[in-house]
């Protein structure tokens, strides 16, 4: 009797110990690894933004892995981010996607920011049902015929109307505009968006300029358009360095035009590159408030600086792709599967996702024929006395 009681006690103790220590009678299953490809510009003209895609994805993946992985359909998954450099070119993108799909067997690609790259590899990804979470701005990236492609950041199609309306409101005397966009697929698409938005706002676009991406000497172009005396000069997402140089040269040549940015910039970097006096009055859209006190933003910045250093530059791409990757993880959990079709379907149903950039939701059917464009609120900012000032929100 005594020995029986002892045996029951021992078994009970072991049972309780098992739960206390999280041990099972079965050996613990290792987390499976899911490879996610990141195709982005790590060198060349687009590296300024391209690195942000990788940073955002890496940070999000590391956080999930540190917590033991993600539960997908009852199995634990850790994530391996595999980076491919498309050099911001179509040929680079096609080669990267080919390797990712056929050699590394991925079925999810994060990136690219290059329209040329995404347009070059979309036939391949759509044919192979590979989910693509891109940021490229060319309109043709999203179509009903491309059901596996998503855009994870607002393009000029979404930003331009807000900018045009705010310019109209603040500067009612401005009647004419010139757009300056890079001579590539992104630039042509961006220019179209701004032409439409300004004309809807009652501002006539008198010239569309397409300098080669990487051009830094805008004197000849500005010399020519000076005679037309435009009310504003709209940047078509040239990049913070190029738009800083453009703004500086506008001031040097004594053009009276208001310089307007087409994408989020780092205001401190812009002022440093352009000059405090020259940067005065520059208006631009912004999606990421680096000074926000929201815990999600503070934590993101802390993780970013811990991994990449205190002096590392954050562009708008870093938090955007951090959010994009976390959205992907949410979709994987919801789908309970790594099958790209199921994940795609789950992604489409996610509503009001709380990210570093605020509440995120997919839409865009009226513009693209498919609800694969991510939307969020953004604000219009202006440089005043060398610092960013928020003018108002576009929701």
């Amino acid at each position, binding site marked *: 009797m005594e020995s029986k009681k002892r045996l029951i006690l021992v078994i009970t103790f072991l049972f309780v110990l098992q739960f206390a220590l999280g041990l099972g009678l079965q050996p613990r299953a290792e987390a499976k690894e899911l490879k996610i490809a990141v195709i982005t510009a790590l060198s*060349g003209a687009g590296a*300024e933004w391209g690195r942000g895609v990788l940073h955002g994805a890496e940070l999000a993946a590391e956080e999930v892995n540190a917590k033991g992985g993600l539960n997908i359909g009852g199995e634990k998954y850790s994530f391996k981010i595999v980076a491919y450099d498309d050099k911001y070119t179509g040929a680079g993108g096609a080669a990267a996607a080919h390797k990712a799909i056929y050699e590394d067997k991925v079925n999810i690609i994060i990136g690219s920011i290059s329209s040329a790259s995404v347009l070059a590899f979309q036939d391949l990804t759509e044919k192979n049902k590979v989910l693509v979470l891109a940021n490229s701005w060319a309109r043709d990236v999203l179509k009903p015929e491309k059901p596996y492609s998503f855009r994870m950041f607002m393009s000029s199609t979404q930003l331009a109307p807000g900018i045009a309306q705010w310019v109209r409101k603040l500067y009612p005397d401005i009647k004419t505009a010139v757009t300056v966009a890079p001579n590539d697929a992104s630039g042509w698409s961006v220019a179209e968006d701004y032409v439409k938005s300004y004309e809807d706002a009652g501002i006539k676009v008198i010239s569309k300029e397409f300098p080669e991406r990487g051009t*830094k000497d805008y004197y*000849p172009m500005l010399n*020519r358009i000076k005679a037309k005396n435009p009310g504003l000069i709209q940047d078509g997402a040239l990049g913070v*360095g190029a738009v800083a140089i453009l703004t500086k040269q506008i001031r040097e040549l004594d053009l009276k035009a208001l310089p307007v940015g087409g994408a989020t910039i780092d205001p401190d970097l812009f002022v440093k590159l352009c000059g405090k006096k020259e940067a005065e009055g520059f208006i631009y859209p912004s999606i990421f408030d680096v000074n926000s006190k929201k815990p999600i933003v503070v934590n993101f910045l802390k993780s970013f600086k811990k991994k990449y250093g205190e002096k590392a530059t954050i562009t708008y791409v870093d938090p955007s792709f951090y959010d994009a990757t976390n959205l992907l993880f949410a979709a994987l959990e919801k789908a309970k599967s790594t099958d790209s079709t199921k994940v795609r379907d789950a992604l489409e149903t996610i509503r009001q996702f709380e990210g570093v950039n605020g509440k995120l939701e997919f839409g865009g059917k009226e513009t693209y024929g498919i609800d694969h464009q991510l939307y969020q609120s953004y604000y219009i900012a202006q440089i005043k006395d060398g610092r960013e000032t928020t003018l108002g929100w576009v929701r």
Partner: protein
Amino acid sequence: MELIFLQTCINGLMLGSIYVLIALGLTLIFSIMGIINFAHGEIFMLGGFATYFIGEYYGVNFFLSLIISMMIVATFGVLIERIIFRPLREDPLNLLVISLGLAIVLQNLALIFWGPEDRSIPVDFQGVIKIFGMMFSNERLAAFIISVTLVIGLYLFIGRTKAGKALQAVAQDYEAAALQGININQMNALAFGIGCALASAAGSAMGPVFLVSPFMGIMPVMKAFIVIMLGGLGSVIGSVVGGLILGIAESFGATYLGSEFQNMVGFIILMVILIVKPLGLFGYRE
């Protein structure tokens, strides 16, 4: 209308003067060593970065930073010539490949260590000058003056100094020069060092105007190749004339035809000139 025309001419001359400076370094290296140095754009980039770091972190005046960076990059050039190019001097194909590889390595190292972001070289002479209605930034004027000074300096060095005359002798016939007691290895190192110093000066001069980044050398070196083909391979006077022609042509092309034509114009002119004069404006058969 006249004002636009004059401003376009002056803009073109200023831009052309920078092309001259980059191209002179390239043509000097080619005429002495017979090497087309594809890493010349990255040497230009290193010069820009050197001036940036010296000015930004040590607070040194821009012009002094430029001189110091010329010396640093020239020394680097001499080392590259000694370690990488000299052993392969008799193998031009391998030299070509090596210089291409060096360009990729230098660009990617700059990207790894310094990041892709643009940087502005600090100067204390920012501002704009207005002359007869035409506007010029002080930075562009400074770049123009630096270029003219160095071109004149090079001309005097080549024509009036013993080392310069030795370089000329090597360019004409290196075997005969060697027989005259000229140390070919030393002359090659000197040419490479001067070529790199000129590229460095061009990068430093461009930095305040167009910013500094790991990719800043890609376009200028392409322009430098157009200039030396236009002017004639190995011809110093050809590089000067070719650079100015290219700068002015680009300025007029972009001003009167459109921004998309800025780079196209240079190639069109090159094609036309090479059809008429296959060796370039001042090129010659050996």
